[in-house]
């Protein structure tokens, strides 16, 4: 079986994001870059499938600048076999559709039985690339999967929706996007990390793709005014209820 996992390098979620001098993008200095957390679930799932059924090649791919190599190496250290970087300029702006098109250009040439993605990258929060890749390839897609079983050339996935879970069966090849809870991603072993360092990365240069959506400007959200400590312990509760009712008028 050939599995492709699409990954992105993103700032650590504890990073304080600073706006760049162009007021359109973020300041990329002093950022601890990590493999997108939702992509970790996708990588882990692919490796578990490989361990379970054998005879499987797991390829990871990323569209991004040179620094993305470290995210790919993290995935290889976890157990992925091959890595492809579709390289962009350091300051290139791509919207989700452009990323999906870049991925599709490679996928069309290599062909896979299963394509896994994280449900979203925790930087742009677009939640778009997975289903876009599926549509461009005319493949079925199940988003936000919290459970996956492969059997008789079919995939059965659990998809979380508001107040419930859908059980969806799909033929393969298919695109699936991982929700938290799908599995528990492993920490790469030292041996894996050492091997990943020597792994050659298949690097390709991205051909320009016109974005369909432009970021005009970015700003910080309005800061909330400093809070009011109503009091200490249970004695403060009546005053809090009074404030919620009369001042905030929310109850």
């Amino acid at each position, binding site marked *: 079986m050939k599995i492709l996992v699409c990954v992105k390098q993103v700032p650590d979620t504890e990073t304080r994001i600073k706006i760049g001098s162009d007021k359109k993008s973020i300041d990329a200095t002093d950022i601890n870059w990590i493999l997108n*957390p939702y992509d970790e679930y996708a990588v882990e799932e692919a490796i578990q499938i490989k361990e379970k059924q054998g005879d499987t090649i797991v390829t990871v791919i990323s569209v991004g600048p040179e620094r993305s190599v470290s995210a790919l190496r993290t995935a290889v250290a976890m157990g992925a076999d091959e890595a492809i970087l579709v390289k962009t300029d350091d300051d290139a702006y791509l919207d989700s559709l452009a990323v999906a098109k870049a991925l599709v250009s490679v996928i069309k040439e290599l062909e896979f039985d299963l394509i896994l993605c994280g449900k979203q990258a925790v930087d742009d*929060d677009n939640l778009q690339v997975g289903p876009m890749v599926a549509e461009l390839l005319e493949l079925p897609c199940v988003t936000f999967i919290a459970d996956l079983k492969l059997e008789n050339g079919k995939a059965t996935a659990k998809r979380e929706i*508001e107040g419930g879970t859908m059980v969806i069966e799909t033929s393969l090849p298919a695109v699936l996007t991982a929700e938290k809870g799908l599995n528990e991603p492993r920490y790469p072993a030292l041996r894996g990390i050492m091997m990943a360092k020597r792994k050659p990365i298949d690097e390709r240069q991205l051909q320009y793709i016109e974005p369909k959506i432009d970021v005009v400007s970015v700003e910080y959200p309005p800061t909330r005014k400093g809070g009011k400590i109503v009091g200490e312990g249970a004695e403060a*509760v009546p005053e809090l209820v009074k404030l919620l009712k009369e001042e905030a008028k929310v109850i």
Partner: protein
Amino acid sequence: MSKPVFVVTEQRDGLFRKVSFEALSEGRRIADSLGSPVVAIIVGSGVEALAETAGHYGADRALVADSDIFINYSAEGYTKTILKAIQQVDPEIVLIPASSMGKDLAPRLAARLDCGLAADCIALAVDNGRVLAKRTMYANKILADVQFNSTLGIASLRPNIFPAAQPDTSRKATVEPLKVDISQTDLKAVVKELISGAGEKIDISEANVIVAGGRGMKGPDQFKILEKLAAVLKGAVGASRSAVDSGWRQHADQVGQTGKTVAPDIYIACGISGAIQHLAGMSSSKCIVAINKDPDAPIFQRADYGIVGDLFEVVPKLTDELKKVVE
């Protein structure tokens, strides 16, 4: 007259979900700025009656794709049907709720239509006849103004942000049934089963009140006191990442950067210190209350009201006091 505003509605069991009223109302507002009509689409099985309601919320035309094939949600079936309708209507913009359904459909439609998608928007505006969208990135740490670089644009709307208008029962939409030409063999991914959560649980992304617990809850059983408080306020129970990672609550309840971004009227944080990724996910709540025994917890910097104290004493007392007020 400008090109129409196209609104994709969402229903479950033949009833509109709240996000549909939000999308229709915002659609009406944008259409009034553009000087254009609102065309709504309703997809489902046994949903004809919803067309009238769509009119009350601002739709001028209600396209109804009613078929047994839609008894269960089907991403492929819905995409194909909505796509065809959009191509026929040729709108200026498509609005769709950023619910789990909308988040599933919107990227597919954008890919097929080769157009831009502004996802999970928190505000829309019209400038010189063009729609601009405001959305968040990095789980609310950054706000971005985006514009479409394609003739058509799609905007998905974050639940609980756009106010739903009061329905105007004198408004009537023209009802137009759509021919559904999809067969079971067209669908490669099929819903086999729908497992509902316990009772009619409100999802935190759509709740007006959230009572959330963190590490300070000390264990899964203690969340019962939060359930009681939430029940009094008809709200939902949320959780911090550490509570979810400890296995005390399911991931669907997680607020923050690897969970959900929420904007309820009241957010009550109990035993949550306030990690950056958590604060990002809840700071657009209208009123934030924090209960924590550590007076230096960062959550107090974001809270409108704070009580320093033992949540196991404060929360039951708060439940009792609120019960008196609400009843």
